[in-house]
């Protein structure tokens, strides 16, 4: 179990005139609709508990209005919570003074925005160095450091352009470089790639993943796109109406959707790319075939098995046999489930 970097505990957010009085009512079980109709308050977040592991990418996903953008803004306190606590590195950021909070924002958590939030009157290089200049680092040093980040997001040659002269994808590279330049170990990404078209989005996801391999930041990534969540997320939390309805690894959510809402959510995704061989493993000695590692995704496993012409595969971990899997089982696992009970039979 890796170390917890950010721990969100019993977080509530209620928008309205007297949120502090309403919290008790909500805790006592008042529904979102009642709160709005009877008291004119909007429930933003409801008892959110998430432990975010160090050096992981934690995806928080939900449809619009689910409170995901509200949630991420609590982590650097752009929005003040109504109740609860947020512990970062054993320190409750809600007890920080304004000065401490500014230091936290300057050096510990940087943010990438859906609409980029670049300074239109400053050149790319000046935008990237923005965080460093805010920290009080002198300009030559800041520009020097920024140059490296511009290179690492693939924007060399555009240092002296203004944001308005760049395409959306390039602007978000600037946004990413600006966030990385401060050397903060937490990266908050609020629908960072949602405004980009699909090809560029996929590009940016790859950029992020390859940077993460080197940098090992703790990334909190907000998205409404399940494919994006599955591609990036080490862990995923699904948010609905301000409450976390399920959290865990991508595999766990796909194999055991907690309710119809989640089932509905995941029904259109390509399971073969997410599920790993171990999740459909059985123990049938009649199966012979090539040996595959337990972490191989089913899409690749199917190819290996099909090419070998056998009726299944032997699943191994560190060279030790763990079990077997039949071709049919694998196909059944990725086939769209008709009913929950049927899928239960396949997923052990």
């Amino acid at each position, binding site marked *: 179990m890796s170390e917890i970097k950010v721990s969100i505990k019993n977080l509530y957010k209620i928008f309205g005139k007297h949120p502090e009085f309403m919290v008790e009512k909500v805790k006592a079980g008042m529904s979102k609709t009642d709160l709005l109709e009877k008291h004119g308050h909007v429930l933003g977040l409801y008892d959110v508990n998430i432990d975010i592991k160090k050096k992981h990418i934690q995806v928080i996903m939900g449809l619009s209005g689910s409170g995901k953008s509200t949630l991420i803004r609590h982590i650097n306190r752009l929005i003040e919570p109504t109740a609860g606590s947020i512990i970062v590195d054993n320190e409750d950021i809600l007890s920080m003074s304004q000065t401490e909070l500014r230091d936290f924002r300057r050096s510990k958590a940087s943010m990438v925005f859906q609409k980029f*939030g670049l*300074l239109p009157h400053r050149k790319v290089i000046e935008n990237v160095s923005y965080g460093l200049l805010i920290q009080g680092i002198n300009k030559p040093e800041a520009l020097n450091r920024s140059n490296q980040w511009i290179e690492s997001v693939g924007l060399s040659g555009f240092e002296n352009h203004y944001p308005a002269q760049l395409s959306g994808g390039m602007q978000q590279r600037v946004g990413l470089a600006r966030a990385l330049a401060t050397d903060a170990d937490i990266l*908050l990404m609020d629908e960072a790639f949602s405004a980009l078209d699909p090809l560029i989005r996929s590009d940016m996801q790859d950029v992020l993943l390859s940077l993460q391999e080197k940098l090992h930041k703790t990334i909190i990534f907000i998205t409404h796109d399940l494919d994006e969540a599955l591609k990036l997320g080490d862990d995923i939390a699904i948010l609905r109406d301000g409450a976390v309805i399920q959290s865990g690894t991508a595999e766990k959510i796909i194999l055991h959707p907690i309710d119809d809402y989640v089932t509905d959510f995941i029904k259109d995704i390509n399971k073969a790319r997410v599920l790993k061989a171990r999740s459909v493993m059985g123990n049938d000695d009649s199966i012979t075939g090539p040996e595959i590692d337990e972490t191989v995704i089913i899409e690749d496993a199917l190819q290996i098995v099909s090419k070998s012409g056998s009726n299944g595969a032997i699943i191994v971990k560190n060279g030790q046999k763990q079990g077997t899997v039949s071709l049919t089982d694998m196909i059944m696992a990725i086939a769209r489930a008709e009913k929950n009970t049927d899928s239960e039979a396949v997923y052990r």
Partner: protein
Amino acid sequence: MGRTDLRDFKKGIDESFRNFTREYGEAIENFFDPLLYFLVWLEKLFLNTPWPIILFVIATLVYLGSRSIKLTLGAILAFLTIGYLDMWDDTMATLAIISVATIVCISIGIPLGILMARSQRTQMIITPILDVMQTIPSFVYLIPVVMLLGIGKVPGLLAVCIYAIPPIVRLTNLGIRLVDKDVMEASEAFGANYRQKLIGVQIPLALPNIFAGVNQTIMMALSMVVIASMIGVKGLGVPVLRAISNQYLALGIMNGLAIVVLAILFDRVSQQFGKRLQAHTESSK
């Protein structure tokens, strides 16, 4: 209110203001002395400098501001005509008071606008005051100003400033409030403090609006020239006033047109300059 009551009421106000004037008039006059010295110095500077030098300075400023040869040539031609028609001295005097009024308005108006953008409450207090300043007939506030400071340059300057300051305050406030919320949030998220947000983000992004405010302030100051001349300010307003009372048509038109020329020059130059400030918004490479 009964007739006697009303009379006593008005008398009371007049009396107490007169007392206030007697008590503090001199102190207030002394307070404005530096402004008077500056205004007199600038006027003398404009009047005593040989005209070719002034013309050269004006042409250079126009070119630096607008980067337009056409406008620069137009300015030179306009000032030559003004000189030819013997309005040079009055034009210089007007230029001096407009410059000082603009400096005063900017140095008070921009901070006031910033303050106004900072909180809803200050905005609520200042807005109606600005409304009054813009709509009240100038003669009405000339009365207390003259009672307090007598006739002369400073009361004239004050009258001009009262009328001309609202646009710069309003547009500074508006410009700051219109700065993109997303950009402000980003700045906040990177830990910028109030000063860093103001100087690094809000003011630069509000600059086009602030500049429109400066432009409007200059225009309104120019339109006060005639009224200011009624309480002893030298300049193009004086001959206009003389033309009104003596029905000198040509004199009135000539000096009136000189004011118009100044206004057009100020306007075009400051607008071109404001446009160049927005270079970064162009999306073409």
